[in-house]
């Protein structure tokens, strides 16, 4: 009777690709070499459009931009694991996976440049808009996962958030409810170790974020988030699980935000150069490139071509962006309700008159 064990908690960490580009063969997932090259391409594309956004911002052609530099492996790895009909429910630092899931880059740019049309995705893109209120999107992830379950759809919901967002009540409610309902949801934490200036140890006393899954009776796993193979492996496992109807699970991808929080932030106020340098050495792109090199799957010519292609693709997207006609003043009003109520119509009329006079 006395003191008995009623629960045993074990949380594992998965790593496959080390910083030198060597993989653990026992754990290495089966991926076509062409897809591995694609993974690399995806990550370089992300890096390219992210750096471009920072440039645009400095030129005054972009609003506040949250860079994804350093977090490309998480986003590319999860994207590769997702099926065509799966839903993505992002927070606000998921431009990479959003683009991989089909959101046109020029829309991503448009959104962050301050144009609502940037969240009006093509109909076949199963992606929620950016969620700025930290943590709130977890609930949508749970809700979409429940929706897919109730409808018996062969699709899952993959939802993202940062380490900081795990402190919000919404994280808790969402993951807990998903557990109760057996929602077809995969919760992916991009633990980039900072929430603006707050380091992880000021965010929680828990040793890992993956262990939070124990609170909800769910499987949770930590992966090296700069290791695209580990991310992919864990994501496949979690997505398959949800797809089978075996319920939600949680992935903590440990990565690092190499840039500032946003273009409005100055990270040097709260973290040291050495830390950043340490993590620059773990850059997920360099790491995958090393792997490709070891395997003889890539060379400098390919790299040059890729970089050029990436640049010109980004430039082309900027062109599309810049060719978007300006929003009409009306657009502020026309999507407020399915049918415009009289007082909104009246105000729209006032604005139109004002702008035309």
């Amino acid at each position: 009777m006395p003191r008995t064990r009623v629960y045993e908690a074990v949380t594992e960490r998965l790593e496959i690709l080390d910083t030198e580009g060597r993989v653990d063969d026992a754990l290495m997932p089966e991926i076509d070499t062409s897809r591995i090259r694609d993974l690399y391409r995806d990550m370089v594309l992300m890096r390219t459009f992210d750096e471009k956004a920072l440039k645009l911002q400095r030129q005054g052609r972009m609003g506040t931009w949250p860079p994804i530099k350093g977090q490309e492996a998480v986003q590319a790895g999860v994207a590769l694991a997702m099926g065509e009909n799966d839903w993505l429910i992002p927070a606000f630092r998921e431009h990479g996976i959003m683009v991989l899931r089909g959101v046109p880059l020029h829309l991503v740019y448009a959104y962050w440049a301050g144009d609502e049309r940037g969240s009006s995705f093509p109909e076949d893109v199963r992606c929620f808009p950016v969620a700025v209120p930290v943590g709130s999107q977890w609930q949508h992830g749970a809700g979409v996962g429940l929706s897919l379950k109730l409808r018996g759809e062969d699709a899952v919901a993959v939802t993202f958030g940062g380490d900081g967002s795990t402190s919000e009540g919404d994280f808790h409610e969402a993951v807990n409810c998903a557990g109760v309902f057996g929602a077809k949801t995969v919760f992916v934490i991009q633990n980039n170790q900072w929430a603006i200036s707050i380091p992880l140890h000021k965010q929680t006393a828990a040793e890992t974020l993956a262990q939070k899954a124990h609170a909800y009776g769910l499987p949770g796993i930590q992966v090296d988030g700069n290791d695209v193979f580990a991310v992919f492996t864990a994501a496949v496992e979690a997505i398959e699980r949800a797809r089978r109807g075996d319920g939600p699970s949680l992935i903590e991808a440990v990565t690092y935000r190499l840039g500032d929080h946003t273009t409005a932030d100055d990270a040097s106020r709260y973290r040291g150069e050495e830390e950043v340098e340490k993590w620059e050495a773990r850059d997920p792109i360099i790491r995958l490139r090393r792997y490709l090199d070891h395997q003889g799957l890539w060379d400098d010519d390919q790299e040059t071509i890729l970089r050029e292609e990436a640049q010109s693709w980004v430039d082309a997207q900027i062109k599309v962006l810049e060719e978007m006609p300006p929003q009409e003043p009306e657009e502020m009003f026309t999507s407020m309700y399915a049918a415009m109520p009289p007082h909104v119509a009246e105000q729209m009329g006032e604005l139109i008159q004002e702008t035309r006079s």
Partner: protein
Amino acid sequence: MSASGAEGQALHAVPEVATEKQTIAQAVRDAMLEEMERDERVIVLGEDVGVDGGVFRATDGLIERFGAERVIDTPLAESAIIGMSVGLAATGFRPIAEIQFMGFVYPAINQLFAHAARMRNRTRGTLSCPMVVRMPYGGGIHPPEHHSESYEALFLNTPGFKVVVPSNPYDAKGLLISAIRDDDPVLFMEPKRVYRAFREAVPAEAYTVPLGRAAVAREGTDVTLIAWGAMVRVCLDASEVLAREDINAEVVDLRTLNPLDRETIISSVVKTGRAVVVHEAPRTGGFGAEISAQIHEHAMLQLEAPVQRVAGFDVVFPLAHNEKLYLPSRDRIVKAVEKVLAF
């Protein structure tokens, strides 16, 4: 059922079809039941809405009829109830979420305002949140703290939401059906004080009462009383008292607070020249101010006196002992009318 019946102005204009004497609580339940029969995208979720049938029995029997997949007992988590509803609604369901009492809506405000109300606009129409959030509100039943609140003003400076408040069983059913069919999020406030206070004839089948249209609950010529929910009956009571003094009050039952039926309000006030707005929420910053402001903006020259407000005091809603002292009463309304008449 004739369209004029459903869309008519009179409070009791029940069309000639099979009817049943029902309370508001029953009418609310039947509205959900019929819409769930009609449209399988409609689901119900909330705390105790399933097996228990809701703490006010407003979802009584639904789980037996539709099963636990469509009548979902949730964990105790208001933000999740609404946040998950956002996910459900944006992907094809039409959730009817219950917040057990309006006093417990606060934890859900973020999901309601930052997401439900914005999804359509944020995505320029690509995604939307057709959902109804039902919540019992208001005083008069002597419950514990936080069970008597009328927080409508909280919801009326946030675009993207509709806010509906029935005052009687007929409207309750017709408005709720409209709300469920509406393509935008609708906050549906249920006056718990009169949940079972009286019965009225309610058509057995489905019908709609349009959102955004007030009803003239009583015609009059001398003063316009403007109210919603449980306060409509208090205004009607006051009108009886006033009638004895030969004061003929018109009572406008707003039914929908957003969008507001300014036309009905203004044309009544233009006719009577005087208006008193009545609500349970504290006076300052309450929605009565908006109505007063709009009346002055649009009918100043026709007013014989400034619009008066009869409202709760600017204090925390008191526990049972003082509840009666707090709530707008028939006598307070009568006094306010006398004041506008004497201006």
